[in-house]
């Protein structure tokens, strides 16, 4: 079973990386989800596999009776699942706004502001309408 888990983790990471390397901005979001799942599974594996024995204190005792699944990775993953969901929602909202503003699905169209000394005209294209008579490239001085 351990081998199968390893293959599963590797597949999820590989697929996620492939999607992250795509230029399409939507695929980036799907890649993020896969990456989150892969990371959670890796974390889960770090506690070892114990089938069918959750870490619960039995009603008649005060301590968990081993063998039981490791509670610590589970607690970590719980946090991770929720946070990656928050990140995903933010990313999707950001992608939505970017798409609405710039009308592009191609990440390569978004590089202009990142590059030194060769900022193209397009990067200065104002997103919001400019009042008449004001040069959009001037910064107010």
């Amino acid at each position, binding site marked *: *079973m*351990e*081998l*199968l*888990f*390893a293959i*599963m*983790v*590797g597949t999820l*990471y*590989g*697929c996620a*990386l*492939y999607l*992250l*390397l795509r*230029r399409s901005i939507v695929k*980036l979001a*799907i890649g993020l*989800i*896969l990456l989150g*799942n*892969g990371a959670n599974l*890796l974390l889960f*594996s770090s*506690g*070892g596999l*114990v089938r069918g024995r*959750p*870490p*619960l*204190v039995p009603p008649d005792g*005060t*301590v*968990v009776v*081993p063998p039981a699944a490791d*509670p*610590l990775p*589970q607690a970590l993953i*719980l*946090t991770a*699942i*929720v*946070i990656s969901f*928050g990140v*995903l929602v933010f990313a*999707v*909202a950001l992608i939505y706004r970017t*798409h609405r503003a710039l009308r592009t699905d*191609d*990440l*390569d169209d978004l*590089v*202009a*502001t*990142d*590059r*030194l*000394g060769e900022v193209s005209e397009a990067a200065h294209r104002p997103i919001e*309408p400019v009042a008449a008579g004001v040069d959009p490239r001037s910064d107010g001085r």
Partner: protein
Amino acid sequence: MLLSLATLAVLILLAPIAVPRLERRFGYLVALASAASFGCFGTRLPDLFRDGPYSESVPWLPTLGSELALRLDGLSALFALLVTGIGAVVALYTVGYLEDDPRLTRFWVAFLLFELAMLGLVLADDLLVLFVFWELTSVASFFLIGFAHDRPRVRANAQQALVVTGAGGLALLAGFLLLAQEAGPFRLSELSTTARLPVDTPLASAAFALVLLGAITKSAQVPFHFWLPNAMEAPTPVSAYLHSATMVKAGIYLLARLSPLFGSHPWWEPALVALGGTTAVVGALLAVTQRDLKRLLAYSTVAALGTLVLLLGLGAAAAKAFTLFLLAHALYKGGAFLLAGAIEHGTGQRALERLGQLWRHAPPLTASALLVVLAAAGLPPALGFVAKEAVLETGLRSTAPFVTVVLTGSFLGQTAVAWLLLRPFFARRTPEPSLEHPPHWTLLSGPAALGGAALVGGLVVSWIAPLVAAVANSVTGAAKSQVELALWHSVTPVLGMSVVILTAAALLAIAWPRCASLGDRLALTEPLPERPRGLGRLAPERGYRAGLEGVLRLASVQTRILQNGYLRLYITVIVGTAILLTAATVLRTRGPVASGLPTRTPVDLLDAILVLIIVVSGFVAVRASERLAAVAALGALGFSLALLYARYGAPDLAITQVLVDTLTVVLLVFAFYRLPRYARLSSTATRLRDAFVAAIFGGMMAGFTLLVFALEPPSRISTFFNEQAYPAAHGRNVVNTILVDFRALDTLGEITVLGLASIGVLTLLTYRRGERTR
């Protein structure tokens, strides 16, 4: 000592509130505070002469073994008197010079910061404290030079001064650290008295070279002298204070302070004599060919600084001459700068050939000018005369004859500059430049005070003798010594040389128009242009410019390579680095992967089917050509994962995964409806390359997972939770107790992250202003 520093610090904090109310009158306050400090240091002198050095300290950075330790000995006292005394005069002068400039607040903050830093620098007894103050003077100098920051030239020159002195400061820090490692304590007093540096180790030599580099950049020695004339863009009070009397002497101070330690180093004498001698001659030559009054004085200051370094290089025999010349130069050169500022303020003119006949218009200014010129030229009653005698005598006594030649040449240039200061007042000139308004009394008092002090210094030279002796003790490291000083020595060869220098310098000053046109022809009179010609082609400043351009070009090239704006390249670099490092580690250690595949848990058919669904869904999500297909695959993947979690003892995970996965699918279905359709944007080659990288990465992570399985699971932390969940947290679900009890703060952080994300989403979705109507 601490009180003086504290007073200045309080004034700095007070300045932003007080200057707008008091306006120019704040200058009187600064002058008063400086004068009070001057008085304090002055009254300390008798105790100092009788009981020796005096220390104060406050703990600071105890882990580094560093304290805010201050120490007043002869050398510190001399510098502290100069800093506070000239500071008071210059502050008073500034009242009349800047008048009601709108940038007064900024000026006074920087000025006070400088005074504080300079005073701290000369009083510091701890290497690190000294370094901090050293850097502070560079920073304050940057703001003061860049005072008129709306002119590009001013900004460039301020930056140049900061880069040159700042780079020297870095060298100095490295030198100090080496020094502390080699010689032990951070205390200067211990370094120069008890600790003796083993002179022949490479570490000691490196420390010396680095400290020397720091000192000569600060004190504008050739080839780093160029920043000083360029710094003349500063307001004139700043030039007088920082760039002739105090800050440029910080390097001299440091060398003098460390001379007991480094003086026996075999490089000390050759390095200092060569650097100082070159600077003394080059500065003098450049000075007499200038047309601009302030640049003239700046180059003459360079020559004087070179003379001082040369004298330090000559060792203990020159200590008396060094002290006298240091004191005399600070007084008369400060006065000369203030005089130049008063002339410029009155006439709006700084070019020497356009000035003349001012004595008719401003008799009081002429009177103070005469004081300054007599002091600067070194005529008999002046302190400069005594100093010059002492320096020349030292030169004659030294074994190398060229020292005398160098000193004579340098004095010739410096004295000619002094005589040239008479030109604006007496040279015939048509049309006569007019004085726009009579100078404010504060403008007259500055040059008069400093020039007068330098002039009468020679008369009371016997009073100065104990101070000179104390300074000489600090420089040589001797315990106690006596110095006899007199104004008149009877007729000696040195007197003859003095007379010759005075006469020759006067002739040189009369022939100045020829010198200046020679300077024009060699392209020396103007600041270095973009395309240097004449001797400007040899200027060391070109090296500075080339270095600066090189750094900028390197920065932009490497930024363009590393910061290219393509997310996928960033990811490739990060992942590639991770893969390479992992591969290298695995190959080097041959980790437990080689010991066989772990098969602790038997394969279960249902689990295997779930794993298969997950793997297939992953590939479907990648290969899907429709957005909805990808979302459906993600849903299948998430629910299978939840089932797996449930079967492997994690019901809480399963519940959360189901909930979040449902929400994700719903979100994506809604959002993707508004997002663009899939497009195929990459070429097949790119896709194959990415697939290759992804496959390697996936393989690596699979191997990593196997490695994790092969390791013995770390049980200690979980054992604690398993045992304490019920007794301590009163919960039977261990995972829940961890989340809400043992690690509750983490959960709070998680909630915060979610809150922030929702604020961000809300902002993004409700931000309507940027919408374009289409």
